[in-house]
């Protein structure tokens, strides 16, 4: 098995989660018929190059009370968007922060930040805090709340 195939097999073997056994990497290695050290090495490599963001426990934010989220969109000067994006990304209540293209005149927003809270008022309060932080760089913003999930299949690797 070459490296690309092995990496693909590791993705398939772990996309439902890490086996909950004392030696999970050894179990994956046995399933794939390779050495445990090789599995560990490939997973470290995937962490390093970003194919794996992290290996972690992901809590269900709805069950923890964070039931409200709003997509805040901001029009900030292009020359400052990277610096401001990095700054918003460090806020504990922002889960995703991206630069995206504008469509002028109807869509002037180039910075997107998903804001989480226990209710809409809390989300709006956090958006106000972001506006204060951006100060004069905030040349207009809106918050889009989702009103309905129309489809949610999630991503599965094949």
């Amino acid at each position, binding site marked *: 098995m070459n490296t690309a195939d092995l990496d693909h097999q590791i993705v398939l073997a772990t996309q439902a989660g890490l086996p909950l056994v004392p030696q999970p990497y050894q179990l994956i290695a046995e399933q794939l018929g390779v050495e445990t050290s090789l599995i560990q090495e490939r997973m470290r490599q995937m962490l390093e190059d970003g194919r794996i963001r992290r290996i*972690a426990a992901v809590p269900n934010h709805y069950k923890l009370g964070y039931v409200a989220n709003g997509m805040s969109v901001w029009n900030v000067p292009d020359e400052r968007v990277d610096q401001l994006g990095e700054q918003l990304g460090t806020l504990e209540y922002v889960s995703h922060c991206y630069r995206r293209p504008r469509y002028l005149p109807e869509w002037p927003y180039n910075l997107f930040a998903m804001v989480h809270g226990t209710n809409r008022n809390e989300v709006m309060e956090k958006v106000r805090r972001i506006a204060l932080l951006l100060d004069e760089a905030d040349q207009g913003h809106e918050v889009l709340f989702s009103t309905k999930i129309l489809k949610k299949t999630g991503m599965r690797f094949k």
Partner: protein
Amino acid sequence: MDESLDEINRNIINTLQYGFPICDHPFREAAASLNITESELLERIRVMRESGILTRFGPLFNAEEMGGAFSLCAMKIPSEKFDSVADKVNALPQVAHNYQRDHAMNMWFVLATESPEEKLETLKKIELQTGYRVYDMPKEKEYFVGLYLKV
């Protein structure tokens, strides 16, 4: 806040959201830093996975880094046409999720395709089948992805 979470479970969530080791006995290593035993940690994670407190335990993959072309797309659909357009958009396997949002741009979906060509074809297909413009908003830069909730 979920009252059923005791201090140990809160500790597990707060600590292991940030990362989990790659080594021969990772649960033993993580358990030691949480001051519990390996078997207790495994059991608690199993229970929290089953009850849905944890949606996932394991590697979080970055689909974009695996290859493929992705985009966030928006559409502006008159309310009387919304449901029929949603049906057409959702019917495409390349549409991973789709949300209605309270804005003139009222339909927001994520396209997950295997190549830039497939992405363009899918965008064109949606415009042709629905008669409405698709505003393609691929990420130009990612500043942060992740949500660390302190419980």
